[in-house]
């Protein structure tokens, strides 16, 4: 990477899902890989995630969803991120994401879609290859 400062990732838990073990493991792996990680904690609204990503000047906006509300949430957060001027940032999502939903998630702007059991190295390498 030819960047002067570390890649900054805002990692968020959208909605009411309380399963944060995966998000915390990913946060630790990204930190070990040299990224700066801001973890939002549980129960974030689309508005809160857009605001945090803007305030923190995030390079990467990452969502962790385990309870099946990923599509309605991403449909709602997409225009908010765009309105905040974050359309050019790297958006990724991981968790319990059925394969049949991956295309729509990508179409909504989530370039990286990582289903459960994705290797941590694959997430790290994807961010390095795609962050601007």
């Amino acid at each position, binding site marked *: 990477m030819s960047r002067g400062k570390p890649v900054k990732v805002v990692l968020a838990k959208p909605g*009411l899902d309380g399963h944060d073990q995966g998000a915390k493991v990913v946060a630790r792996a990204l930190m070990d890989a040299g990224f700066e990680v801001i973890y939002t904690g549980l*129960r974030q609204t689309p508005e809160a995630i857009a605001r945090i990503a803007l305030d923190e000047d995030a390079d990467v906006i990452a969502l962790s969803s385990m*309870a099946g509300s990923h599509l*309605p949430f991403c449909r709602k957060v997409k225009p908010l991120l765009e309105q905040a001027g974050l359309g050019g940032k790297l958006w990724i999502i991981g968790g319990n994401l059925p394969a049949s939903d991956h295309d729509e998630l990508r179409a909504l702007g989530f370039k990286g879609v990582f289903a459960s059991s994705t290797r941590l190295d694959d997430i790290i390498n994807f961010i390095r290859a795609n962050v601007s």
Partner: protein
Amino acid sequence: MNSKDASRGERRSVRNESGIEIAPLYTAEDVARTGGTAMVGLPGEYPFTRGIHPLMYRKQPWTMRQYTGFGKSSETNKRFHYLIANGQTGLNVAFDLPTQCGYDSDDPMAEGEVGRVGMAVDTLRDFEIAFAGIDLDKITVSLTINGAAAILIAMYLAMAEKRGYDKKTLRGTAQNDILKEFVGRGTWVYPVEPSIRLVGDTIEYCAKHAPKYSPVSVCGYHIRESGADPAQEMAYAFCIAKAYADEVIRRGLPVWPSSSRACPCARCSPSRMSWSERPSTYSMAMYTASAVWPASKMVTMLG
């Protein structure tokens, strides 16, 4: 592995997932060293190492409950009837996240989550529909609900009363283990102190008005799923159970009605023995959850 390696493997001690060394063979000498047959005892007798009933599973096997609930209460009711028709002996109700977190289905926070991971409950009418046609004396119901448990226990008892059941004889269970939510699963509604008070309130109410109802199931399973090894899981679960027991004792209630916890088989006997050391309670009812990581690991080992 050839036969020579296999026989050497059998003689070697192994460590279990908690890092505890397991010897290749145990004899009467080991029993004597850990307190003798008095610490094993007979089933149905103190210290209940061999179970809380004299005939245990010969008299009554585990109640089988598949975790079930989705969409509207009418859809869940259909599923309940299907499961009972196919031999299930109890129900274990799954609630959607808005219900678990205390939101109405039309709250903005509930968008995209209504009826998703369990049944949506907004009013008593949802309970009346969900349990319509189910004999609550024959089929015992376990409510998997924690942060909002006080409300849903009240709904269950109110629904049963409306149908003519006597709260004094009604059986059933709620998970209602809010401290576990802070440690392992994240679905709490109130902070720690008021949560303990709520658990105490439900125990006190049931002890006085619905004495056959089990208002709390202490649950190590979610703690395990969040990364604890089996020994840590038991340690956390016992600490949590003690916190509830202390709250009840503080209120001057004479007896802790019952306690149960998630427990794959090898942990049942030591758990019962340990719990029997609490002077106010002694006997420990158990439930075991089979899902996700521990179970899939067990299946791998058995396979």
